[in-house]
């Protein structure tokens, strides 16, 4: 479980738009990075945005019910988790870091994908089916993944910035996504706070084109409603603003700049809600809204 001294992980990855150093003695973290971040550049002499360490628990928790701790730049923002969740903890911790660090971006909870330069934003309300739909759009319809969890909006350019990382899947969605052509699903983590959790790797084009931002064009609120048929309904800009605000991690801290950036974004997008009972229905509705096949 713990790597020998000579193989302890210390690597620096370009996880666009950031450079992240990861250090950990856990074999599971090394395996996670090798599986999901194998196509990332490993810059040798770059400025490091986030210096992350996943370390064994303190005191008795080194041996008894062993734990993993997440540290970023020597800050310890979370309580430790059971050691078998060290790898998903890296993803959760990196999400938290990107959302809470003041870096001049507006960050809100949504999946973002791009086609022909235009981006669709799928805000993430729990149970809405955002991640499954996001994986389906990547693997079945050829959309480029910008991010599955974090919409990163640059207030200066008004563009969405890509942060291609593993798509996080929960419970039933793991098997559904696993059957998509080209999907690579990693280790399953049982009994986490979110139930069973696994990740699907981003496509190579998502990593290779990560430096290209995308213009926000559609804002679509997915609503998974089994057995209810499927339909599209328009959402007013005012309502969309309030809903996005709820999903924003740092709009309040961004003050006037954040407010204006979201206003600009809403001025440029069509807002819809889609209700669907199956993945194929959802794909059809997205095609209808975006006029992209």
């Amino acid at each position, binding site marked *: 479980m713990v790597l020998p001294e000579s193989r302890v992980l210390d690597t620096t990855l370009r996880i666009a738009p950031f*450079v992240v150093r990861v250090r950990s003695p856990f074999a599971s973290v090394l395996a996670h990075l090798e599986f999901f971040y194998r196509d990332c550049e490993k810059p040798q*002499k*770059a*400025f*490091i*945005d986030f*210096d992350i360490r996943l370390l064994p628990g303190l005191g008795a928790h080194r041996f008894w019910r062993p734990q993993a701790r997440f540290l970023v*730049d*020597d*800050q*310890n*923002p*979370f*309580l430790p988790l059971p050691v078998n969740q060290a790898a998903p903890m890296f993803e959760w911790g990196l999400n938290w870091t990107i959302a*809470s*660090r*003041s*870096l*001049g971006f507006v960050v809100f909870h949504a999946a973002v994908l791009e086609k022909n330069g235009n981006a669709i934003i799928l805000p993430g309300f729990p149970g809405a089916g955002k991640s499954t739909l996001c994986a389906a759009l990547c693997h079945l319809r050829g959309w480029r993944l910008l991010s599955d969890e974090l919409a990163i909006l640059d207030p200066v350019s008004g563009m969405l910035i890509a942060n291609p990382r593993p798509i996080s899947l929960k419970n039933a969605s793991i098997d559904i996504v696993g059957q998509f052509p080209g999907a690579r699903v990693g280790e399953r983590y049982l009994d986490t706070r979110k139930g069973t959790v696994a990740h699907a790797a981003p496509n190579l084009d998502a990593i290779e084109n990560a430096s290209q931002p995308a213009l926000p064009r559609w804002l679509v609120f997915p609503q998974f409603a089994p057995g209810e048929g499927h339909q599209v309904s328009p959402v007013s800009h005012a309502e969309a603003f309030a809903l996005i605000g709820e999903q924003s991690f740092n709009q309040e*801290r*961004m*003050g006037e*700049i954040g407010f204006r950036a979201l206003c600009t974004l809403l001025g440029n997008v069509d807002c819809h809600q889609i209700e669907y009972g199956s993945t194929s229905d959802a794909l059809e509705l997205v095609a209808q809204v975006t006029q992209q096949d």
Partner: protein
Amino acid sequence: MNRASLLELLKHPQRTTALSPNGWTEFIATARNANLLGKVAQRLHEAGVAVPAAPLRHLEGARLLSERQHHSVAWEAQCIDATLAQTDEPVVLLKGAAYVLGRKAAGVGRLFGDVDVLVPPGSLGKIEIRLMAGGWTQMKSEEYDQRYYREWMHELPPMIHVRRGTVIDVHHTILPLTARSHPDADAIIAHSIPLPGYRSLRIPCDEDLIIHSMCHLAHEGELHNALRDLDDINSLLSEHADSPDFWGQLGDRAEHHDLAASVALCLMLVRQFFDTPVPESLVLRLAGADATAIRRLTRLYDVAIVPDPEGRPPLRSLAAQLLIYIRSHWLRMPPRLLVQHLSRKAWQRLTLASGTSPKNKQGA
């Protein structure tokens, strides 16, 4: 990055042009850990230094956050003023809020959280009730915590606003009632200056503002913000360094507040760390018979203050930090009371061992 390099770059922002990418990584991480990133960002911005794009994102982010916090603190001050104006009592802002609203150089780029105010002891009941009517509520509900603050400390238990989530610390004196020194809080209020545009809010006169900052640093057991506090003090002192009467007045005021030794210690530290032009005569006057002891204490702080993003200071620094921690408690409480307090807290911690609320100590 070690302390000397951090301070050098803080003093001479132009020298950052020589930094390698790795140097920038260490500089940003160290400054963030010392709670100085906002100030560093502001100084580089003012000096017009060309910063590479990657670290610039962190600096501009910190500058944005600090501007946002200054807006927030101004709004919070309006709310406090509107709530407390009817009491007709003076409400003196302290520390960060006073620097920002008093437009001191020390406030520029500074990041902070709570608002601290000083009020006359006799008005405490009135002020607490007005704050509660205005939407502030007690954060500490334990009976022991309430008693600890009210009987032994120098402030009401911190109060949080139910809607805005902002925190106010209401002080009625400068140091705990149990402390060895007894600064004259009445005099701070009497010499305070009204803030234009507010009905009840005031800020301390500059000498008191400086002495309060020094008193706080010299009595504080944790050194996480020590460099930031010393930078504040350096900025405050530098505004007056050229005025011939200033240093003498500062000395008079320090003696009046029963804080000569604390002020002497901080003057020595700020001179050593920031090359502040502090007159030797003033240090000698304030240190008096304790000069040797204060010099030894200065060396202890010199060893203890190590901004280290890896969080692994050398053993002698850890030892120095522990001594300063013990000393701070020693200064604030008589030994018998201290033992009672610490054992009571330890017992609370044991009986509440399952208390696993998520920690949240995120900086910029």
